[in-house]
C-alpha cells in the first residue's frame, strides 16, 4: 500500500486522480446504462401488456375478444400480405444480391449507388412514386399507356412493400455471398462444375439460411408497416394500418395495445426462427474468404442466371424510375395538363418549413451522437464485463428491433403520459424513442468492432496503472473509431426517415420532416411530398458524407 500512496502524493495530476474516481464512475455508468434501458425499453413494453388487459372495470380480456372479432379481416390481410411480400421480396432480393456481388467496376458502383439512396430514403417514397407513376393519373399507366385503373388495392401494397424492402435484404445477402470461401468455388470448378452448377450446387445452398432469414425479416417488416396500406391500400386494411387509425382517429390506446400484442405473436415467432437460422448461416459462411466479387458469370448460369438477371434489372429500373420521378416532381408545376420547371414548391418549403428542417436535423444529430456513444458503452459492458444479468439486458436491448415501430411508440405513450414521468409532447421522448429503437443495430455494429480489440489491450492499460475508466477512454473508445462512422450513419439516416415509432409522440406544433412528408402524401399534395423526400435524401447524404470526410481526414492525419 505504501508505494501506492507515495505515487499519488507525488503527482496529484489529473490522470492519477482520474484513476481513483474511475471506479466510482464505472459503477455510475453501469447504473445509468441499465437504468435507462429499463426505463425506456422494459417499462413501455410492460405498459403495453398491462394496458391491453385493463378495461374500465379491471382486468379483462375484453380488448382481445373485441379485436379478434372485429378485426379478423385485417388480421388475415396482415398475414396474407406478409407471406406474399416475404416471398416476392426474397426472390427479388436474391436476384439483386447475385447481380450486385457478381458485377464489378462501374456497374457495381451504379447498383450500390441506387441501393445507398434507397437506404437513406424515407419510407413513403415508394408509395408516393407508385401513385405518381402507376396511379389513376399516373405518368406510365395514364399518360403513356392511356389506361385507367384503380391502383388502391392489396396487390399494390404487396408489390410496393416487396420493392421497398429489397435494398436492405440485398445488402445482407450480398454480404453473405462475399463471405463464401472462394476456395469452395474454385474447388467446384476444379472438379468440373460449370457456372450453372456452381450457382445451383454451391452458391445457392450456402445462401439458404440467409434466404430464410430474409423471408422472416421481410414478413416481420411487412406486418409492421402501416404507411403503405394507409396510403395505397384504399379499402384494404391491415392490422398495422388499423392500429394507426385506432390511435389517430379514435384515440383508443387499450384496443391499440391489444392489437399490438396480437401483432407481436407472429413477430416473436419469426424472430425465434431467425436466431436459429442466423447461427446456421454463420456456420456455413465462417467469413474466412473475404472477397469483393464472387467469381460467377450469371449470363452463363443457364435459366436460373437469366431469371436472376431479368428480375434484378426489373427491380433496378423500377428504382431508377421511382427516384427520377421523385426528384423531378418537386420541381415541376402543372398548367393545363402539361408540366414545366418551377421552383414554386421549393420557395414555399423554405418559407414555411425551415424550422421543421432544422428541428429534424438537430434531433437526428443529437440522437446520432448520444446513440452512438451509448451503444459503444453498452456493447463494451455487455461483451467484456460481467455486468449482472447481462443476457437479460442484451435481450431487452434487442426488443425494439423485434417489435413493430408503432407498438414501441404506443408503449411510450402509455408509459410517459402521467406524472411523475409526463414526457409526452416533449423533444426528449421523441429522441429517446428514436435512440432506443435504433440501439439494437448500433449495438450489434459496436460488438462486432469490439471483437477486433484483443483483451490484452485492456489488460495492458490496467497493468500499467490505468483504472477501468482509463481502459474505456484510452483503449475501447479509440478502438471503436471505425464503428463510430457506421453507427452514426445508421442513427442519422434512421432518425431522419423513421416514422412508425414516433408518429404518435410528435407534438403537432413541433413536426419533423418525415411527418410533413406523410401528411402531404396522405393529403395528396404529391409535388410537395416529392420535394420533402428529395430534401431528406439530400440532407442525409450530405451529413453522412461530411462525417465520412471528417473521419477520413482524421484517419489520414493520425497515420501521417
Amino acid at each position, binding site marked *: 500500500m505504501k*508505494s501506492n500512496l507515495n505515487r499519488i502524493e507525488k503527482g496529484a495530476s489529473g490522470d492519477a486522480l482520474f*484513476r481513483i474516481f474511475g471506479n466510482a464512475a464505472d459503477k455510475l455508468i453501469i447504473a445509468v446504462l441499465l437504468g435507462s434501458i429499463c426505463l425506456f425499453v422494459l417499462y413501455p413494453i410492460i405498459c403495453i401488456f398491462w394496458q391491453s388487459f385493463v378495461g374500465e372495470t379491471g382486468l379483462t380480456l375484453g380488448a382481445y375478444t373485441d379485436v379478434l372479432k372485429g378485426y379478423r379481416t385485417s388480421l388475415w390481410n396482415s398475414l396474407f400480405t406478409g407471406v406474399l411480400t416475404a416471398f416476392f421480396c426474397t426472390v427479388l432480393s436474391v436476384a439483386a444480391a447475385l447481380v450486385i456481388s457478381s458485377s464489378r467496376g462501374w456497374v457495381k458502383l451504379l447498383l450500390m449507388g441506387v441501393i445507398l439512396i434507397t437506404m437513406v430514403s424515407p419510407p413513403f417514397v415508394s408509395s408516393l412514386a407508385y401513385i405518381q407513376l402507376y396511379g389513376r393519373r399516373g405518368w406510365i399507366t395514364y399518360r403513356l399507356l392511356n389506361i385507367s385503373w384503380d391502383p388502391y388495392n392489396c396487390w399494390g401494397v404487396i408489390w410496393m412493400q416487396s420493392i421497398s424492402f429489397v435494398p436492405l435484404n440485398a445488402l445482407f445477402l450480398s454480404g453473405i455471398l462475399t463471405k463464401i470461401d472462394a476456395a469452395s468455388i474454385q474447388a467446384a470448378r476444379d472438379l468440373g462444375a460449370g457456372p450453372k452448377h456452381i450457382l445451383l450446387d454451391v452458391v445457392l445452398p450456402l445462401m439458404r439460411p440467409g434466404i430464410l432469414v430474409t423471408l422472416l425479416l421481410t414478413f416481420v417488416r411487412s406486418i409492421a408497416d402501416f404507411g403503405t396500406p394507409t396510403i395505397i391500400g384504399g379499402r384494404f386494411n391491415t392490422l398495422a394500418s388499423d392500429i394507426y387509425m385506432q390511435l389517430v382517429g379514435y384515440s383508443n390506446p387499450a384496443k391499440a395495445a391489444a392489437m399490438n400484442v396480437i401483432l407481436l405473436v407472429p413477430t416473436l415467432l419469426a424472430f425465434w426462427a431467425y436466431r436459429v437460422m442466423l447461427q446456421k448461416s454463420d456456420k456455413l459462411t465462417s467469413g474466412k474468404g473475404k472477397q469483393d466479387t464472387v467469381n460467377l458469370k450469371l449470363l452463363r448460369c443457364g435459366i436460373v442466371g437469366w431469371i436472376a438477371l431479368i428480375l434484378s434489372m426489373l427491380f433496378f429500373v423500377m428504382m431508377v424510375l421511382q427516384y427520377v420521378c421523385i426528384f423531378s416532381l418537386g420541381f415541376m408545376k402543372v398548367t393545363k395538363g402539361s408540366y414545366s420547371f418551377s421552383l414554386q414548391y421549393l420557395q414555399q418549403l423554405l418559407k414555411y418549413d425551415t424550422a421543421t428542417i432544422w428541428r429534424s436535423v438537430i434531433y437526428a444529430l443529437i440522437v446520432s451522437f448520444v446513440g452512438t456513444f451509448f451503444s459503444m458503452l453498452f456493447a463494451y459492458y455487455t461483451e467484456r464485463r460481467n455486468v449482472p444479468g447481462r443476457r437479460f439486458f442484451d435481450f431487452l436491448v434487442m426488443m425494439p428491433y423485434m417489435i413493430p415501430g408503432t407498438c414501441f411508440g404506443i408503449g411510450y405513450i402509455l408509459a410517459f403520459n402521467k406524472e411523475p414521468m409526463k414526457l409526452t409532447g416533449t423533444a426528449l421522448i421523441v429522441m429517446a424513442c428514436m435512440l432506443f429503437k435504433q440501439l439494437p443495430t448500433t449495438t450489434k455494429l459496436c460488438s462486432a468492432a469490439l471483437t477486433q480489440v484483443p483483451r490484452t489491450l485492456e*489488460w495492458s492499460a*490496467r497493468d*500499467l*496503472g*490505468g483504472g477501468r475508466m*482509463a481502459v474505456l477512454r484510452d483503449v475501447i473508445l479509440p478502438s471503436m*473509431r471505425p464503428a463510430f462512422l457506421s453507427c452514426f450513419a445508421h442513427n442519422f439516416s434512421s432518425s431522419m426517415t423513421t416514422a412508425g415509432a414516433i408518429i404518435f409522440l410528435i407534438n403537432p406544433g413541433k413536426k419533423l420532416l418525415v411527418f410533413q412528408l406523410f401528411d402531404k402524401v396522405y393529403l395528396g399534395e404529391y409535388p410537395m411530398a416529392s420535394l420533402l423526400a428529395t430534401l431528406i435524401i439530400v440532407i442525409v447524404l450530405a451529413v453522412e458524407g461530411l462525417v465520412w470526410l471528417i473521419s477520413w481526414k482524421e484517419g489520414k492525419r493520425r497515420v501521417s
Partner: protein
Amino acid sequence: MYLELSHLKKQFDGKDVVCDLSLTMEKGKLLCILGSSGCGKTTTLNMIGGFLTPDSGKILLDGQDLTRLPPEQRPVSTVFQSYGLFPHMTLLENVIYGLKFRGFSKADARKKGREYLDMVGLADRAGAFIHEISGGQQQRVALARALIVEPKLCLLDEPFCNLDAALRVKMREELKKLQRDLDMTMVFVTHDQEEAMILSDSMAIMEQGHLLQNDTPERIYRNPANDFVKRFLNLDDLIWTQDGKLMKIISHQM
C-alpha cells in the same frame, strides 16, 4: 523472500488449473515458469498480474499482499504474448502510457520515454505506429512499456513465441542484459526448454497445475525431481560441463 506465492489455487468450471502452488524467488533474479501448454503457467502469471483472482492462497511481493489488488494498483507490469500494444498510439505514446498514472508531467514522460526507447534501440522510430514496425520491434516496445514504470516485478508471457528462431536468440540475450543492467526481477513463462535453461536464474517446472520442481537450471540438471522432468527437459541430450558450459547433443540418425 521477495516474491512469495503460497498455496495458490484456481479452478475453471470445476476443473483444477492450478493446484496448491507455492514458490518463492529472490530480488533481481529471473524465474522461468516452464511447462507444456495447459499446465497452468499462464494462469499463474495472470494471478500475479491481477487479471485473475485465485480461489485461495496468497501472493506476497516485497512484504505487500497483492492477492486482492486490481491490476492497476499492483507494482507489477506485464509483457503480453501478443504484446497488447495500443494500435492507435505511436511508439512513444505507447511507452509512456503508464507514466500518466504516476504523476509525470508530459515533458518528463516524453523524456523518459525516449530514454527507454533508446535503451531498446528504437529511439529513431518514436513517432511510428505499431503496424509500421516489425514483430521484433513490437516486442521491444512492449518491453520498454512494461519497464518504464519501474515495476517491482516484470512478468513476461511467452514473449518470444511470435518471433523467428534467429531473432528469438538475439532477443533472449538482450532481455538478459536488460534484466541485469536494471537489476529487474522478472517472471518469464515459456514452453521452450532451451530458452528456460539459458535465461533463468531459477526454473519452476509445472505439469497439470502442479509445481514439480523449482531450482536453478544446473541443480535441476544434476537432480531432476522425477522422470517427467527428465524427459521434458531432454536431459539425456544435454551435457553440463564442470566449467559451466551447457551443450546439446544433436544425434544424426537416418
